[in-house]
């Protein structure tokens, strides 16, 4: 495996994760994340050929229930917590580049 976390890796994952980083942050995170991954990489060398993965501590079965109407959160209270709302909806800047 290639050496983990170059500067380019940081820029790439920051874009995927919707984070904007300053140049000095990119350097700092590259060094820190490489050091962390270097430590945890201890487990990447283990032979786990016949070991099944565990995604969750419980043996989860799908939970089904009757589809009965119940109370929901009041719309106005939910929208009160939003940064911007209009006409009973969340308001966001343009998504497809059209004029605001």
């Amino acid at each position: 495996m290639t050496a983990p976390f170059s500067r380019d890796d940081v820029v790439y994952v920051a874009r995927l994760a919707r984070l904007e980083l300053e140049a000095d942050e990119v350097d700092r995170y590259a060094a820190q994340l490489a050091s962390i991954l270097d430590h945890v990489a201890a487990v990447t060398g283990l032979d786990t050929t016949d070991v099944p993965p565990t995604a969750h501590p419980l043996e989860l079965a799908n939970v089904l229930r009757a589809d009965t109407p119940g109370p929901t959160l009041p719309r106005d209270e939910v929208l009160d917590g939003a940064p911007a709302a209009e006409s009973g909806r969340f308001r966001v800047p343009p998504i497809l580049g059209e004029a605001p």
Partner: protein
Amino acid sequence: MSATARERPADAIRTARAVRAGEVRAREVVEAALTRIAAFEGALHCFNTVTADAAIAAADEVDAAVLAGKDPGPLAGVPIALKDNLCTRGVTTTAGSRILESWVPPYDATVVRTVRAAGAVVVGKTNLDEFAMGSSTENSAFGPTHNPWDPNRVPGGSSGGSAAAVAAGFVPLALGSDTGGSIRQPASLCGVVGVKPTYGCVSRYGLIAFASSLDQIGPFAATVADAATLLDVIAGHDPADSTSLDVRPAPLANILDEGVGGLRVGVISDFLSDASPSVVAAVRDAAEVLAAAGAAVEEVAIPALMLGLSAYYLVAPAEASSNLARYDGVRYGLRVDAPDVTQMNARSRSAGFGPEVKRRIMLGTYVLSAGYYDAYYGQAQRVRTLVARGFDEAYRRFDVLVGPTSPTVAFAIGAKTKDPLAMYLSDLYTIPTNLAGHPALSVPFALSEGLPVGIQVLAPSLGEGPMFRAAAVLERGADPEARGPIEPRLAGVRR
């Protein structure tokens, strides 16, 4: 109580008994808690929000119920503090983050409703590492919490505010959340009892998610009996949490005096090699206390547990990167405006998240990204299986396991903030439990250089009964000066 013993504030059980019997008014209890908070909170910063007026009003309701001949419940009039990642309707819930600095939830977490229904009175929301990511409470966007035993030291984390609030005698009970040790490690560093219940035992509905397959809510208290009482109240099925168990552990409050006669106790030898000498000495003394009380105590090596930390720092950031995608400046929290929505998302997240949260989001995004998924995340999930198998094998021979909670006593504020990996190692002994979904607790046991050392008791899923019996024996055999609440030490605070 001997003449030399410190006078302690009334515990939760005695307080509730007196309030239910009409001997003490809940309002007096709550006012005393608020007075103590007012005196010391400026120096300790346990809380992000103190809800004084609402607490007085809730106490009056408890008193009115008693006067009307109704039973307010097993926690009647007991002040309780809530970690600030538990949603409280109408009360700001920040998760220690700028991105939720002014967010007011439109609903209560299930545990919040449950403790209120049992008569407890919420006095405030406690400080934490941002989104519960940390081991010192220094990652809070609102500044660190100070350890009541030595204000120049951390209280541990991420539930440091809850642990310190109990240690300082602000409240007899608090709730925290534990994803990799965030209840047990601060409990150990603050000299209080902290319990991470079996995964699924306590509803996570309304807990702000960090790593959903690892997160679990649990109690802090000054005594084992109080912690058992609170866990009895909050345990149980909740249809609002699809990972909530249909079974619950048998009530704990009545089994605490059953002792450990015949109990098979394994001392995890792998946890003794890197711990500080005073911590190792405390574990050895604890093993003797259990043996003297009739337990069959033996050392056991479980090498797979030492793989836990590496697996955890792949699994938990992966889940976190997914869970925290919801903070995008649209439905709640901080928004930084921008000409288009993608830039708005990125600017809001960059301004709202602190450095540790960004680190974990990027680490998680990386290990989940194309080309790395199998090597890192897939492998970590297989190692998670190895950790669980290591425990399973040990639990064929033992009923409970014991070891240190934290490798060291409370460390100095600032000592580990520049080296994330050094901070992560604080959770070396607590993380395996979360990966397996098991219960574990920390009980105060000894003092080292004037600071408390906690002993960790671990058990298999739904093994809370034997775990609490062992903890009760350890509590009776512990140095009584090693546990809170204490009179907070304030001299020489550097802030």
